[in-house]
């Protein structure tokens, strides 16, 4: 599951953007800088030009899908609280949409005209432009269209460059951002885009004509979906809806912020400046600062998402958080079941011998507490398939297998079950518990810790 595209939407999006940009640069050199020649030239593209035009289009289409899914994923995981990433992400989405729409218009076919007319309806509906601008797409003036052509080409290229710069802002506050997808995913997505381009080459519609309005034209829904609202609402209402939804999304981090205050507390006296918390924090929220003559860790609340991973990263147990409860007292013979919050748990696992502890991220459970439990019972950990807090599951596995500080001491590691959530995980867990308890009686080794 390490190559599940839904777990790598951000890096997959970046890769698709690279594909779209590289193919876009190539087709730009084959693209005549005149609206009257552009249609004929683009429609006639075949061979490498045609293939790369299709790659450009399909990678852009797929990019919109992955970007929207990435945004939804972040919203559902509560990541909108990090306002810089959230706001920059929404602005990037808006810029991507404009880049896509202007790109479709540069083909100068029926779809371009339809998109032009619909864009004008929205611009007029917003009250910022007068209705006369619609004549650009009704009129036959080459001069008028030539001006629009240059503006669209400029916006398409300039916003693409801005996108690349915006991604830096979007990721600059992340520790170790994953910018490149796993190799298998990279190959898979590239092959798929190439296959789309070969099997379904993109074709132009009828030539844009002021004499024939596009009564029914193709409309790329990946970028044209916003325009479909115009079929049921007036342009002004669409602008109001888009404004309210967009504004609400932009304000989301600021509206929610007030009741989101359970930042970890750092005991500076205990801090021995080992920097493990700085290394472990997935969001770069911890830095080392000088305090009363020594160097200690300090939290930057603006970056903190309260995952609690730093709580488990401190070998001195110098970080506590109200969001990460202490483990319950050890009950000999019981199974401590550690879960990331929000996991659906069957009823039979809520009863004896299970003691269930749900935390924001299992990566926040300190190895010392787990060590205590392992002496007298068993510990089972079920983490999210795609760690909501990026590195929680990775750090947990490394710590509990003794490869990252603070380590679990070897000895009872066989009494430990670690698995990513899946529909079958609870069955596996119950089988493991049955065999573990049975085999302990016979003094045999206990198995099973799967990726």
């Amino acid at each position, binding site marked *: *599951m390490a190559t599940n595209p839904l777990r790598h939407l951000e890096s997959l999006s970046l890769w698709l953007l690279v594909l779209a940009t590289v193919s876009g640069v190539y087709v730009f050199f084959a693209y005549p800088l005149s609206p009257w020649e552009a249609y004929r030239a683009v429609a006639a593209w075949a061979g490498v030009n045609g293939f790369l035009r299709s790659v450009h289009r399909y990678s852009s289409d797929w990019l919109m899908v992955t970007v929207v899914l990435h945004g939804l994923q972040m919203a559902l995981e509560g990541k909108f609280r990090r306002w810089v990433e959230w706001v920059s992400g929404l602005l990037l989405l808006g810029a991507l949409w404009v880049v896509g729409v202007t790109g479709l218009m540069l083909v100068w076919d029926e779809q371009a005209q339809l998109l032009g007319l619909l864009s004008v*309806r929205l611009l007029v509906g917003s009250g910022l432009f007068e209705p006369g*601008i619609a004549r650009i797409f009704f009129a036959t003036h080459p001069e008028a269209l030539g001006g629009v052509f240059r503006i669209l080409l400029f916006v398409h290229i300039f916003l693409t460059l801005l996108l690349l710069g915006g991604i830096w802002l979007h990721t600059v506050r992340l520790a170790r951002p994953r910018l490149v997808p796993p190799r298998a995913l990279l190959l898979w997505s590239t092959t798929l885009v190439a296959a789309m381009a070969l099997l379904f080459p993109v074709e132009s519609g009828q030539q844009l004509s002021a004499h*024939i*309005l596009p009564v029914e034209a*193709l409309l*790329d*829904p990946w970028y044209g979906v916003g325009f479909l609202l115009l079929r049921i609402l007036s342009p002004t209402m669409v602008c109001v809806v888009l404004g309210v939804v967009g504004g609400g999304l932009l304000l989301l981090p600021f509206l929610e912020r007030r009741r989101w205050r359970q930042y970890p507390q750092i005991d500076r006296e205990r801090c021995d400046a080992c920097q493990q918390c700085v290394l472990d924090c997935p969001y770069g929220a911890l830095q080392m600062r000088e305090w009363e003559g020594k160097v200690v860790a300090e939290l930057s609340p603006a970056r903190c998402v309260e995952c609690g991973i730093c709580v488990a990263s401190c070998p001195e147990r110098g970080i506590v958080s109200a969001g990460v409860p202490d483990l319950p007292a050890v009950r000999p013979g019981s199974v401590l079941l550690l879960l990331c919050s929000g996991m659906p748990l069957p009823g039979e696992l809520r009863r004896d011998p299970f003691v269930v502890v749900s935390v924001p991220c299992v990566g926040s459970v300190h190895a010392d507490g787990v060590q205590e439990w392992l002496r007298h019972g068993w510990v089972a950990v079920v983490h999210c398939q795609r760690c909501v807090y990026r590195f929680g599951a990775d750090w947990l596995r490394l710590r509990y297998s003794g490869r990252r500080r603070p380590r679990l001491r070897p000895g009872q590691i066989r009494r430990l079950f670690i698995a990513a959530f899946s*529909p079958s995980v609870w*069955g596996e867990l119950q089988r493991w518990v049955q065999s573990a308890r049975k085999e302990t009686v016979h003094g045999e080794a206990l198995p099973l810790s799967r990726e």
Partner: protein
Amino acid sequence: MGKRFLFPENETAQELTVRSWMIRVATVLLGSALLLCGIPWIGKRPAGFYGGQSGWIVLSWEYVPSPLEVEESGGRLPHMRGVGVRIVVRRAAVEVVLVRGDSDTVYTRTFAPRGVRGDAAVTVAEELPVAAGNYRVSFRELCDSGRMEQSPSFPVRLGEVVLVELAEGGFRLKRR
């Protein structure tokens, strides 16, 4: 125990692994096929914005109305207009009326000339959803002895778009 889980209790770990791999391979193949066909197919769906429950009349033209006020240029600097050149200060507004049948006015609007002083051209660009029927478009400048034009009656059917333009010799109609 086995009831609520995907795999029956008596399967071995090896069987589970094989089944798990089959599911993964099937998921990858199905997902790839969906993307491979879905993205191009959805991108080729036509969408209509002018059809359906009404016909459409699109009015589109630019017109420079008659001057209402003219002044003589008094600039003396070399980069300015020469002395005595007549400059239009203000132009007439124009009125556009759309009539259904003989006398049912469905649209009327006065267009003022553009520009800060109101001395530039008038731009008419309107998309009007209309019921099926016969229509006439008329145009007149709101000044003494201003130009007036009236189109002949033309039919509009549901789902049809008629583009109306004003040219030198009068109205021109284009259909689709």
